[in-house]
């Protein structure tokens, strides 16, 4: 058990070292959080991010709200990607984990079922996540 923990800490250290690189990386791995609730949001977020010149690969998770991307730092930066996501109406979290809110206009452009700021709609989607039956 101790060993495992140790290995993990090593791995984690490896990750943090990576993200501190200042060199312009051709295949930089970036992760930040984007607010959204469903598969439709996923499509909207991923498309917006991928259409940014220099972004090669995008993956947004409905459950964790984590956006993973691989991008060419020589061609783009995280800010431009985030701008594009904000433009389609999804809030993002910047490097200090501070929420950057999309304009009301942009937010209003998302499909009614994707109003991720609305508690009720969030609850609606919870049902999709799992159906439990107790035996």
């Amino acid at each position, binding site marked *: 058990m101790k060993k495992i923990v140790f290995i993990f800490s090593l791995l984690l250290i490896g990750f943090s070292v990576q993200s501190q690189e200042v060199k312009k990386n051709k295949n930089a791995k970036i992760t930040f959080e984007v607010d959204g609730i469903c*598969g439709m949001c996923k499509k909207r977020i991923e498309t917006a991010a991928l259409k940014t010149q220099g972004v090669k690969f995008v993956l947004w998770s409905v459950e*964790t709200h984590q956006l993973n991307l691989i991008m060419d730092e020589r061609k783009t930066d995280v800010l431009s990607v985030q701008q594009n996501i904000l433009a389609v109406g999804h809030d993002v979290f910047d490097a200090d984990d501070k929420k950057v809110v999309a304009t009301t206009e942009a937010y209003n452009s998302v499909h009614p079922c994707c109003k991720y700021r609305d508690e009720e709609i969030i609850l609606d989607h919870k049902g*999709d996540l*799992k*159906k*439990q039956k107790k035996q």
Partner: protein
Amino acid sequence: MKKKILSSFLLLIPFVIFSQTTFKGMIMDKNNPKDNLGVEGASVHWLHTNVSAITNKKGWFSIPYKEEYKKLVVNYLGYKTDTISIPSLKAIHHFLTEQSELKEVIVTAKKKATYKPFLTTANMFTVNSDELLKAACCNLAESFETNPSIDVSFSDALTGTKQIQMLGLTSRYLLITEENIPSVRGASQAFGLTFTPGTWVESIQITKGAGSVVNGYESISGQINAELVKPFSDNKFFLNAYSSLDGRLELNTHFNQRVSDKWHTGVYIHGNYRGEKFDKNNDNFLDNPLANQINVMNRWQYIDAEKGWVSFINVRFLNDEKQTGELGFNPKLDKGKTNAWGSEIDTQRFETSLKLGYVFPELPYQNIGLQMAYSNHQQDSYFGLNVYDIQHQSVYSNLMFSSIIGDTRNKFKTGISFTYDKYDELVNINNFDRKENSLGAFFEYAYDNLDNFSFTAGARIDTHNLLGTFVTPRLHVRYVPWTNSVVRASFGRGKRSANIFAENQQLFASSRQIKIDNVDGNIYGLNPEIAWNYGVSYMQKFNFFDKKGDITFDFYQTDFKNQVVVDWERPQEISFYDLKGKSIANSFQVEINYNIAPFFNFRTAYKYFDISTDYKKGNLQKPIQPKNRFFANLSFETLAEENGSQWKFDVTFNSIGKQRLPFTGSNPVEYQLPGYSSSYQILNSQITKVFSNQFEVYVGAENLTNVQQKNPILASDDPFGDYFDSTIVYSPIFGRAMYVGLRYKIK
């Protein structure tokens, strides 16, 4: 008792466009389901690997993912250790239970047994193992009994072999692959599908129309790929026993073993035996051959998730023996004599293959794959006084690189392939030897705008010692005109050398004389077959009475530029000649899937085929090919109990329209057949009782309504005379056959 979690996003298309490398989930405490409090510091790892992760403050973890990983183990001090089945990349939310608490939470939802993916560019659908359990499915050929797009029929009156057709063309025009390595081709064309036991099949992908250039230039009407069970994910032990009232016994066993963190191995053994003689139609000929087969496969699977390596090594050996003919035929005494007519077909086949895949760990969208396969197929057979032996050695190799251009909306695959085939045939006293080799390069570009439009365009150039140097283009387009609909179109070209004897083996079990119109071509004096295939397909999902369904219209045309015409139109001969004029196969299909209630599905299809060829006699419809077919399938399951126990019911109905029969008008009256066969209906059904997750029993009936062709063998009373012919078979011969079987597995 293990917990299970199945994906429940049936609304969302369970198809992932991106290859994903991490799997995420959240671990929560069952005591606080309301607050969704995550458990910090729980450890998760993939079963039998050392790939693991620890949950963060919020209870979230993310762990490297490979498709081979199916089971995730969750550990947390003071809580029960759970092993969760991970069917897809969907993130999970899992509640841990305190050690003291023994109540279970089980999460289930119904996965569809077949689904038509919404997002694939090609007109492709997947048949998974649930669907394959709906019928006896003794072998790959029978796996399509419940599938509307593929027609299964008997190839002749003697060998009991099932053949398949798609778009109205026999399987010789399909590219059939096993895990993307071409398999049922050349010498194994006639019986090859029966050489893969049904239990070995994990899933089947069926593509209508032109296939991908990645797998070669031979595919004309479509592609069928069978994925076999894999040592890593298959049950530790599996046993299937089967017995049919037509005298067939089967035994399948799988043993899978983890050898180390990275190596898994599996041994799969299949045996079937039929020792009873049946002659229900009293024509003095066996309705089904006496047969025995032993089929053994050993697979090794290597996975190194950290470094991105995956590999498979397969070795397989098969020995198949069939004896058919007259009831009293004794091979030892009567072989080569005219006192009784009989036939023996002995096949031995050895196959080995290696697959090596490397996914760049930092670039989930980039990989390199290498495939190499060798097979040696030896068939020794005689049919009455006709002798037919064939040996076919084959080498296949393919090296492929996949990556993106700019971003994942633009993907490409490129590579080179090499094939070598050596044929050695003996037809009575004539030897036919031929060597084929080819070297090719391919490039396939796939574009997807992530919304309503995608296409795949591929081309390959091959240089072949007998077919020459030629280009094979293929194109698939997908467009979404409005919500819940898809329009697909495809076109492509295919080229192949026709193995006239291997593909039409039933001709030997007749008195027909073989004629080949030699035009100095490279293959039996004939030229290669070339065809273009075009097609459009439209699918619309709908809601009817609040229940989901979909309707699909398919129209495909195959236009032969050259074809080796197989001409049965003179009853005393079979002739092969190059097409002069037109040969066009049109097929139209409407298919409706409807989910009547949860666990209650209905599928129906109407198919129309118009397949005409310019024979020497003029333009005729293809013989023994119904113009109209109707298909319906109903399946119902009761809700599974906690231990997995449930009932499953399945019924398949086929209506086969009238079929044109080859001309027999010049025969004596008693050996004449009408111009057309009458239409008939067939009903198959199966009931499965699942007792637990380990054990189930099934009982079924094929051809419930007992349809039988009256005299499947012409001149069966005079098998050595001029009119003997067992090739004109248009309906079942045996009649009703009940079967019973069991499946037992240890996960």
